[in-house]
Each structure stands twice: as structure tokens, then as C-alpha cells.
């Protein structure tokens, strides 16, 4: 029996958003691509599942970089260009902030947002708008430079703000604006989507985050993130990509410093010139490359020199009342007992109680999310991977329930209604769940921490030097753009671009 071709141009390990983006872009350029996904459906954690007859979103809070139909941002535009037609719903607000001394619902749009901050902290409008404008300028530069790299003098000329803020943390830049504490707290809420405290977080990343979400709002697919993942997979297949589910790649085959194929758990050896891996470099360089002697010491030093970032813990509740009846008024609630991101980041090193949660009521962004008379409410914290490394199998269920109970109790108190009296279905997703379904390294979903030592600008500068095996590319949260479903698409495109560039270079060399 013959399941595969003798050879593919590119094999993509992992059919989640990054891998599918790679596949789409490569197929669009006429390459012969095979995607091998270990689960029985696409998307990785961008998926859904059905419990008690109700389809439940597995992980998506809100997509960045989509934009309105007539003003698409890069991810929205890429999907449009590839012919992936997703029914996007715009999330009505930015977020509801529930912080010490603050209860307010914020909306997208720089001026609107600045006015809303001003309503909490009178007189802060100008300063806040200045911060947002700076963010927007840096954001534009990042977008342009990621497509058109340029020389340093040229960069300084055309992208001054980007260049001048690159060496500073978010804390350092925000300090320089001397914002009142509450204004600063309100500007800090989205930090959870990049997940490093402001002492360490490059301002560049903060800029992209704020400009994208505040400037353009966020979007969700009408039929949950499975709609997005499935439509990407379907479109890729239409374009000639072969996708095989339930195929777990165990080994990446390397000879003389160059990739030549993969081996799956069922023993198929499949040949290709390029492999794009969604598996973390940590896993690839310590157990997947065959033989391991092909892994240079610099590759090991690189993965050891980086900090694997956050993982996720979510309690998803399907409740037997509608959102309004339970006092839930906003799609997205950031609830913190402090808004000091560094303090929260340290707090995420443990197993709770946690100081900052992010909650989503899907029905308030998508009226069809669950049947009438019910609603879906998820409570999420993003602990550091290290916290979960200590959890033993025999304690797992107890710890999982203790944390879930704490989160439910906290939000019950906030909402003034005991959520436990309304639970139709409960699903507790943990780092172990992520590991089980996706195989991600230690259940991490955020890739490597965005820090001043692992800065996106530096990542771009050293990317070429960090290619240790010819023909091997990576696509996932562990790549340049970092975590998030929008950045996953960007990371996947980057991997595909690297492959295409390499093919072009080889062709040019051969022509000479």
C-alpha cells in the first residue's frame, strides 16, 4: 500500500495555524507540500469540541491583525489573499477592566480609548493618546520592516521611533510618560496576550499589541476557531496540499547537515528537501533529529539560553442561564487584584491563587455561541511552564480541581452569583491537556518569553545565524513573532518565505 508520494518539496510537521499558513503560502507558489498532524483534526489548540450537544471553543479569546473587511490587517489580508473565507465577527468592545479601584468597559479606536481612560483619570487624555500614537508608529514600522528589511541608517531615517525605542523595556518607556497609576493600569490589561512583565517586555512588543488591539479591534470566527482552522486546511487541500491526520512525526531525518525527510510513529519514512516543524526547537534538537549527532552544540545553547514562556489553564463553563441573567455584561473581562504586571508574572510561577484572570463570555461576541437559555463563560490564567513541571500524575486531578475552584469562586464573587449553581458542562484545560493533544513542549503555548534578552528585534537580526540544519525551518509560537493566533499565521508565513528564499538562492547559484 502506498500512502505517500516518493518525495515532497516540503513536509510540514503540525497542521495548526502556523503550519497551515506555511502550507498555503508554499502551495500558492506551486510547491508540493505534505502536512502531517498528530491529532484527527486541524488547528492545534485553535479548535473546538462538543460536550452535551454544545460546541465549545477550546482556546481562542480574540484574534488580532484581522481588521475590517475593507481595511484588513496583515493576517486578515493573508487569509483573504489565500482564498480562506472566514465569517469574522467583530468583538464589540476592547475589554472590561476590573482592577483595584477601576470598573470600566474600554472600546477600540485610539481617541475613544483615550477618552475612556480620561473618564477614569481626568486630564490623562493627551498623554494616553501620545502613548498610543507612539505605539502605532512603532507598529507600522514593525509591519513594514518585517516585509522590507533595510539598512540601519535608512531605518533610522524612516523608522526613527522604532529604532529609538528598540532598546527599552515597556516599563522604561511608560515611565518616561509619567502617567497617573490608574491610566497606566488601564493601558496594561492586554499584557496577558504577550505574557511577560513590563520590566522585561520589549516596548516594541507592547506597541504592536496596543496598536493592533486598540487601534483596530479584534475578531472571532462565527463558527469558533475550528471554522478558521478547518477552512485553512480545506483551502490548502484544494490547492494541492496533502494533509494526513493522526500522523505523529517522531524523527526528522538529517544527513551531512541537511534535512532529507521524516519518520512517523507508524514507521513511514517520507522524503523531502525541507521540513517545517511546529514542534519546539527544544524537542527537535533533543529528541527528534536523527541522528542527534547532527545537532550542533550552538543549537542546544540556543534553546537552553531561552526561557519557555507561559502555558494556559482554563475553566470553561457552559451555564444554564443567559449571560445577562448572570450579570455578565462584556465579551472580555480582565480581572486583577493588582495590575502590576511584574508582580503578576511572578505570581504565575506558582499554582495559585492567581492575581490576574482573563474571562470570555462567547455569547456576547457571538450570539450563536451556545443555545438559547445557556451561555459559555471561560476563566483563564496563564501560568509559567515551570510551575507545572512539578505536578505529579497522582496529584494532577486534585491540583486541577483546586485551581479551577479558586477561579470559579473568584469570578462568582465578582459577578455576585454562584456560578457553581449553574454548571451544565465544565471543562478544565491544563498544560497537560495542551501536551496531550498537541505535544507542545511542557504544554507551553506562548513560545519563548519576549524579554530584553530575547527581543523581537534581535530575533530578526540573528535569525539567519540560528539556522543550524539546512532545510529545517520552524513555525509556531516559538518563532520570531511569538505567541498568539495572529502571530502564528505570521510565523508560518515566515517559515514558508525562508523556504522559498532558499529555493530561489539555490536556483540562482545553480544558474551561475
Amino acid at each position, binding site marked *: 500500500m502506498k*500512502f*505517500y*508520494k516518493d518525495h515532497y518539496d516540503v513536509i510540514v510537521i503540525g497542521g495548526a495555524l502556523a503550519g497551515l499558513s506555511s502550507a498555503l503560502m508554499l502551495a500558492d507558489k506551486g510547491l508540493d507540500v505534505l502536512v502531517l498532524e498528530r491529532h*484527527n483534526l486541524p488547528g492545534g489548540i485553535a479548535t*473546538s469540541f*462538543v*460536550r452535551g*450537544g454544545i*460546541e465549545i471553543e477550546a482556546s481562542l479569546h480574540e484574534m488580532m491583525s484581522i481588521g475590517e473587511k475593507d481595511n484588513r490587517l496583515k493576517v486578515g489580508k493573508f487569509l483573504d489573499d489565500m482564498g480562506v473565507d472566514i465569517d469574522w465577527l467583530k468583538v464589540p468592545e476592547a475589554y472590561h477592566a476590573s482592577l483595584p479601584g477601576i470598573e470600566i468597559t474600554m472600546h477600540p479606536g485610539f481617541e475613544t480609548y483615550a477618552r475612556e481612560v480620561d473618564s477614569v483619570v481626568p486630564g490623562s487624555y493627551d498623554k494616553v493618546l501620545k502613548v498610543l500614537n507612539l505605539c502605532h508608529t512603532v507598529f507600522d514600522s514593525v509591519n513594514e520592516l518585517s516585509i522590507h528589511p533595510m539598512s540601519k541608517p535608512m531605518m533610522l531615517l524612516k523608522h526613527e521611533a522604532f*529604532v*529609538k525605542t*528598540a*532598546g*527599552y523595556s515597556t516599563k*522604561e*518607556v511608560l515611565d*518616561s510618560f509619567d502617567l497617573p497609576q490608574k491610566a497606566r493600569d488601564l493601558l496594561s490589561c492586554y499584557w496577558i496576550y504577550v505574557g511577560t512583565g513590563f520590566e522585561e517586555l520589549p516596548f516594541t512588543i507592547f506597541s504592536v499589541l496596543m496598536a493592533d488591539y486598540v487601534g483596530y479591534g479584534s475578531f472571532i470566527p462565527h*463558527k*469558533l476557531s*475550528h*471554522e478558521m482552522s*478547518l477552512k485553512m486546511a*480545506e483551502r490548502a487541500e484544494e490547492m494541492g496540499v496533502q494533509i494526513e491526520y*493522526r500522523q505523529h512525526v517522531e524523527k526528522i531525518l538529517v544527513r551531512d547537515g541537511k534535512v532529507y525527510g521524516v519518520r512517523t510513529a*507508524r514507521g513511514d519514512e517520507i522524503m523531502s528537501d525541507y521540513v517545517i516543524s511546529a514542534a519546539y526547537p*527544544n*524537542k527537535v534538537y*533533543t*529528541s527528534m533529529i536523527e541522528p542527534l549527532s547532527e545537532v550542533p*552544540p550552538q543549537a*542546544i*545553547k540556543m534553546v*537552553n*539560553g531561552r526561557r519557555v514562556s507561559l*502555558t494556559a489553564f482554563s475553566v470553561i463553563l457552559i451555564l444554564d442561564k443567559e449571560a445577562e441573567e448572570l450579570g455578565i455584561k462584556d465579551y472580555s473581562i480582565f480581572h486583577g487584584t493588582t495590575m502590576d504586571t511584574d508582580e503578576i508574572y511572578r505570581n504565575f510561577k506558582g499554582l495559585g491563587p492567581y492575581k490576574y484572570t482573563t474571562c470570555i463570555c462567547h455569547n456576547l461576541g457571538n450570539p450563536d455561541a451556545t443555545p438559547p437559555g445557556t451561555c459559555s463563560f471561560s476563566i483563564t490564567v496563564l501560568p509559567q511552564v515551570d510551575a*507545572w*513541571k*512539578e*505536578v*505529579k*500524575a*497522582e496529584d494532577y*486531578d486534585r491540583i486541577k*480541581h483546586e485551581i479551577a*475552584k479558586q477561579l470559579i469562586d473568584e469570578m462568582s464573587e465578582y459577578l455576585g452569583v454562584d456560578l457553581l449553581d449553574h454548571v*451544565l458542562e*465544565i471543562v*478544565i484545560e491544563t*498544560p*497537560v491537556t495542551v*501536551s*496531550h493533544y498537541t*505535544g507542545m513542549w*511542557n*504544554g507551553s503555548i506562548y513560545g519563548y518569553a519576549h524579554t*530584553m*534578552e530575547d*527581543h523581537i*528585534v*534581535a530575533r530578526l537580526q540573528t535569525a539567519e545565524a540560528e539556522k543550524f540544519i539546512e532545510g529545517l525551518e520552524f513555525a509556531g509560537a516559538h518563532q520570531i513573532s511569538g505567541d498568539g493566533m495572529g502571530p502564528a499565521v505570521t510565523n508560518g508565513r515566515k517559515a514558508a518565505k525562508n523556504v522559498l528564499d532558499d529555493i530561489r538562492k539555490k536556483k540562482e547559484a545553480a544558474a551561475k
Partner: protein
Amino acid sequence: MKIKGFLKDVGGASRVTKARLAAFEKASPLPEKTDPVAEVAHAWHPGPIELRVAEIRTASKTAKTVRFVRTDGEKLPFFYAGQFISLGFMLDGKLICRPYSISSAPYEARQDNSYVEITVRRSKGDGLIADYVNDELKAGDVLVGTMGLGQFYYEPLRDAKHIVALAGGVGITPFASMAKEIAHGTLDADLTILYGSVSSDDIVLKEELDRIQSDRVQIVHVLSGDEPDWKGERGFLSADLIRKYSREDSSYFICGPQVMYRFLRGEIEKLNVPRRRVRFEVFGQAKDVSSLPGYPAEMKDRVFEMTVMRGLQKDVIPARADESIVTACERAGIVLLTDCRSGECGFCRTKVLSGSYFVSPENDGRRAADKDFNYVHACATYPLSDLTVKIPIE
């Protein structure tokens, strides 16, 4: 940092790049392979494991309990009382999967003498595997199983502390597991089992269950047949009977044959308890698909051609309109693995590339976007024309 200083600084990019390289330089060159989170995931969900039949014993006049141990000497995985195991049986060289609720307790899987048990009743009709287990399976036989499956278990953050179990026939098995786990002190709930049988001879696991009755576990046998000496409850699991054994706040867990579900839906309705307090276990494939609402009865004897794609491999096999896509594959010796076999779990998610089909409306567990793109759960989907499907390579 002064704002002026920061505005003059153009060296940031070089600085962060140097910092990055310095961090790598400092880092250890020794590979760190540790992924302890994956180890926990593996302990709970190791995937298919090889099992050996350690012993088979009688569970009633018509049922047997089969004890399995792992062939690799490891402990069985963690699971929740009430979950099922999917077993793969090799019959005439063809792999056929069946789900069975686990009748042993989770603690028994984790003790030194680690095992897992299922209890299977001989069928009254076409129970190919049920009869095979009762008549042919023997100690020493080796099978592959995947366990810790399904959602039919006590969840402390959702369910009432008192469970009223409504069991019929061999549907007692998940409750046997719960009862043992409670008796062992590792499941913190109270359990009242109302167990309906026709005659006392039909009661499965009677001695085992009666032995573990306590202030937390109560077993009430209810006989519907005519048995003059019977001193216990009689009749069906009626609303009145259920009410009699309920507390102020109870959760109702129901597991039994399909006919019992239809009856109990009505009785539960009369109790007027909140929807979140009622949980039905999935009940397996429809015995007679033509009886399902919406099925075009005139189709039922038709046999179609089904083209099965696995990667580039293409096979054409016969597929009966009254048997699921999975059954057609199994008959043809094409491996299409299933877990729940009830249309719910989606493990056998399959793409229909062309042709028309019927999906059982009683257990359509598909995702909305999957419906739009003709993905089906093959165990609960029936061909209504020639079909082309794509299934995973196993």
C-alpha cells in the same frame, strides 16, 4: 531613564542583539530533554496499550467480567470512575473496536497489582463481540485498548454530592466502578444505585455490589419480572421510585439500553429537576438505523460502493445503507478506529468527499464547521449513495 536620553538612543537594536548572543553564550551546551508535563499527560492518556487477559469470571448467569493487565508490566493509566475503554478485537484478521464501560475502580488500576476490568453480557441479538467475549476470549489473549475515555463521570464542580444512578442491564458497569471507588475512600460522593432488571438472575455483578454497600453506597434492585419471592422494589424505574431515593439535591446518572433511555426521559421530566442534574451515558450504535427519525426506510437494503482514501491509497468496498461507514470498513478489513462508537466523541472523524449520507440525529456530535465541509463521525453515519471518504492512515 530620562525621556531625552531615550530619544537620542539609536543603539538599542545592537544592544539587544548583543544581549541575546551573550545569553546563548552563557547557556549550557548539554541537552535538557525534560518534558515532565508530557509525562503526566502520558500517565493519564498513554494512547493504545497492549493488554493481556488475566482472568475471566462469571458476573451473572449471562455476563462475564474480564480482567486485563498490561503486557509491558506498567500500571494501567489513571481514569475517572464511569469512563470507558475502547478495545480492538481481531476477528478473522479484521480489527473491530468496541467501547466498554470500565467496571473496576480507578484505584485498582494504580495499585501494585494493577488491572482494569470490563463486564460484558451475552447479547440477545446481533452482538458479535459481546458473544465473542463471553464464548471465545480466554486468559492469555492479547488485545489493544485505549482507556480513560468519555464524559460519564462524577465531576465535583458540576454534580450534586449525591448521585442517583439509574442502571439497566449491563449499564450497571460504570456505577460499579464508582461504587468501588467511593468504598475505597478515593471518590468523595454518595451513591444510590437504582438497578432495574427483569429477574434476579439477570442482575450483573450482584455479589460484588452487595458486598460494598455502606452508608455512602446504596444498591436498590428493582425487578420488572414476575418473581413471587422477591422482597425488594418492583416495577420500572418510575418517577415515583426515583423520587423516593432522591435527596434535596441529587444528580441523576443514567446508563442502560436504548429503550430504557426513552422511558427514563419521560420519568425524569416528571421529577422537575434542573437540566444540569441529569446526565445520560452515550448508548452506542443504533440497533436498527431504519427506525431512526429521518432515515429513508426504502434505502435500508441497498448496498453501495464506497471508495476509501487513505493518503494516496484507494480501495473500493461494499457499504450497506443500514450499516455505518465504520462497519463497512471493518468488514472489508480496513482499519478505521473508533472510541465511543456513538457519534459523540469524534475520534472517527472522516471526510466525505462525494456522495450522500445519513447522520443519526439522536447522537450527532459534529462541530458546526465540520457539518459545512462534510466531515462526519463515521460510526454514526450511513451511506445513502455511492460514497468516497478519506480516513486516517493507521
